[in-house]
């Protein structure tokens, strides 16, 4: 069984959602690559975490439902887990970055005070 045998109610939303997921992933990764400082760069991958992951998971849900012939909602597990874990990751990374910036600033100021 290949993707050519899928019914129309899977392929039309699946096409739109897959293209959306691809474009969003691409924009997010270019943001990760090209933005200037760390706090701007954090915005890029969160697009992947939300829109692209959601669109791909809905497509996967549609396709596996069409294969099995009954509604399959296992993919909601990943959606739930990603939507719970992404903010925690973001907050912990932000705290680490703020702490490290502050520590570096304090060290620089102390070094300047010793030299003058």
């Amino acid at each position, binding site marked *: 069984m290949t993707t050519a045998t899928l019914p129309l109610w899977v392929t039309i939303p699946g096409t739109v959602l897959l293209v959306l997921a691809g474009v969003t992933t*691409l924009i997010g990764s270019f943001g*990760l690559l090209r933005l200037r400082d760390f706090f701007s760069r954090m915005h890029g*991958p969160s697009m992947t975490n939300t829109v692209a992951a959601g669109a791909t998971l809905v497509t996967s849900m549609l*396709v596996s439902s069409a294969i099995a012939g009954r509604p399959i909602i296992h993919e909601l597990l990943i959606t739930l887990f990603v939507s719970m874990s992404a903010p925690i990751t973001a907050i*912990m990374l932000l705290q*680490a970055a703020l702490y490290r910036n502050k520590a570096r600033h304090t060290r620089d100021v102390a070094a300047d005070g010793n030299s003058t």
Partner: protein
Amino acid sequence: MSAVFGYALWFAQACIAIAMLNGLVRLFIGPAAQDRILAFDSLYMNGMLMLLTLGVSSMSTAYFDMALLIALFGFVGTVALARFLLRGEVIEP
């Protein structure tokens, strides 16, 4: 219409592959440790999306379990690394 679905699948996989390459570049050139951890986070998320699209294109359900495991352990890894940056140790005594 199904052929268009195949093309959209191909497009999504190509976009995710380019995104993984960008994340890899950021992983190597990242000026600070937190940039590298952020790149690692986006890398495992892209790997999870790649596995899901592979599961759609091969129409098998085995890829779903791998994607779930990647989501679980990638989160644990990122939190452990961020905590190491913040405190200097992962598990506090």
